[in-house]
């Protein structure tokens, strides 16, 4: 059994490690496109609401004796149709995330290969981007099908190293901030950052696991509250520092994946190392997530082995060839539509706890009804406006 402090640190770290994925890499570009004020607004505003939603999820998991995935809780408390909506959102979310890994992974792959690509313009009539995405996608599909991934310990080490390096890069970039960057006129709407920030901040998937961790370590369940608050706030603050420094230093040259635009501003080796580690991080996340998805399709959707593996490999590549080739748009869309939809369902499940279990005493968070309604309104309006203005 761990002592309370260690349990707090381990739980908080689990949440931070889950939240910080690939989404934040798009935030400096979002600063460039939508301006500093709308980005600051959405980051701070959504840090609060995502923290609240994470707390709601903890409450729902603790209030329910049986173990479910998120769509299972929705079916249990809100009924069949909302449950089906949640399940559909889950499936689209899973394949959408695989698509994001495919697009980002091949983008970083291309950045790494650039010095060796002089004269190569693609094959089979495909342009360079498409050729590289096809090679990367096929290689990843083969590794997923063969269940090849690095050990959990090495993956964890890569995540820590990447985060650490990105903090160093942000630190260096913060010394090179050019105030002129902040005078660049935004081209995109106020709602542009909504989906990207939401996609980057949500980590509810790990909440049941953190609660289970507290149980097996015989800790007070209420410890989940500071874990969720700090575990969501810290990634939010890291994002702020990262986006502010990288955009501040790169200005007009800020790239969609944040790092390439730093060439010429930061030492070349540091930029190369950043690209390399980001690539490794995305690659290992892709493999882990892909292998998990095969298992989910088999267990929860009764697929047999081969079709499940084929779908995980082929579907993201097919969506890419049908035209979804911009990872920024895909992330923004997933955030504004699916994450916002799941958030609305979660707030409604939380509100249903008292109705379904009369006399239930809240254990983690007792939110006034007005706050729950406000959270739903933010997600519905934020999602709807960003879909309207951006897609």
């Amino acid at each position, binding site marked *: *059994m761990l002592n309370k402090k260690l349990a707090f640190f381990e739980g908080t770290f*689990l949440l931070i490690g889950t939240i910080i994925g690939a989404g934040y890499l798009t935030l400096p570009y979002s600063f460039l496109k939508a301006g500093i004020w709308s980005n600051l607004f959405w980051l701070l505003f959504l840090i609060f609401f995502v923290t609240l939603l994470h707390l709601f999820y903890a409450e729902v998991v*603790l209030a329910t*004796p*049986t*173990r479910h995935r998120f769509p299972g809780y929705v079916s249990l408390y809100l009924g069949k149709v909302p449950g089906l909506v949640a399940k559909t959102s889950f499936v689209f979310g899973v394949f959408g995330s695989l698509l994001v890994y495919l697009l980002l992974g091949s983008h970083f792959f291309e950045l790494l290969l650039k010095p060796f690509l002089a004269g190569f313009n693609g094959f089979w009539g495909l342009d360079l981007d498409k050729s590289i995405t096809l090679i990367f996608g096929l290689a990843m599909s083969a590794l997923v099908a063969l269940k090849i991934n690095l050990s*959990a310990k090495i993956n964890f080490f890569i995540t820590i190293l990447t985060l650490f390096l990105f903090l160093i890069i942000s630190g260096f970039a913060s010394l090179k901030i050019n105030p002129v960057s902040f005078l660049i006129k935004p081209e995109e709407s106020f709602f542009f950052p909504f989906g990207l920030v939401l996609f980057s901040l949500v980590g509810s998937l*790990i909440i*049941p*696991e*953190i*609660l*289970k*961790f507290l*149980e*097996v370590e*015989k800790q007070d*369940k209420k410890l989940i509250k500071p874990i969720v608050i700090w575990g969501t706030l810290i990634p939010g603050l890291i994002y702020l520092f990262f986006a502010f420094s990288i955009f501040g230093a790169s200005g007009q040259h800020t790239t969609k994946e944040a790092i390439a635009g730093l060439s010429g501003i930061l030492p070349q080796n540091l930029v190369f190392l950043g690209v390399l580690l980001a690539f490794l991080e995305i690659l290992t996340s892709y493999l882990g997530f892909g292998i998990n998805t095969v*298992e989910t399709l088999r267990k929860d959707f009764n697929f047999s082995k081969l079709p499940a593996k084929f779908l995980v490999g082929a579907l993201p590549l097919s969506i890419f060839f049908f035209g979804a080739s911009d990872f920024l748009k895909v992330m923004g869309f997933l955030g504004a539509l699916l994450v916002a939809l799941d958030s609305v369902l979660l707030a409604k499940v939380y509100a249903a706890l008292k109705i379904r279990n009369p006399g239930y005493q809240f254990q983690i968070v007792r939110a006034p009804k007005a706050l729950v309604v406000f959270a739903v309104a933010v997600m519905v309006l934020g999602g709807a406006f960003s879909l309207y203005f951006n897609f």
Partner: protein
Amino acid sequence: MAKKIGTVIHIYGKIGVAILALVSELKVGDTVLFKGKKTEFTQTIDSIQINHEQVAKAKKGDDVGIKVSQEVDEGDEVFLA
């Protein structure tokens, strides 16, 4: 032949916790053997949780959470050692 007491039905990989579906009684302090395609080890049960609560023992039909000392896979079988 050791007595089978359950099967691993879910894993929380990041924290090393397995959910077992019990076909026989399990108590804190029992020594159990995990056996599967890639798994074979024994360990003592330190704590058992059912429905978010700590219990000293669980009975046939319960789904319980226990901390595992090594990696296990879903489908691995658990025997009383």
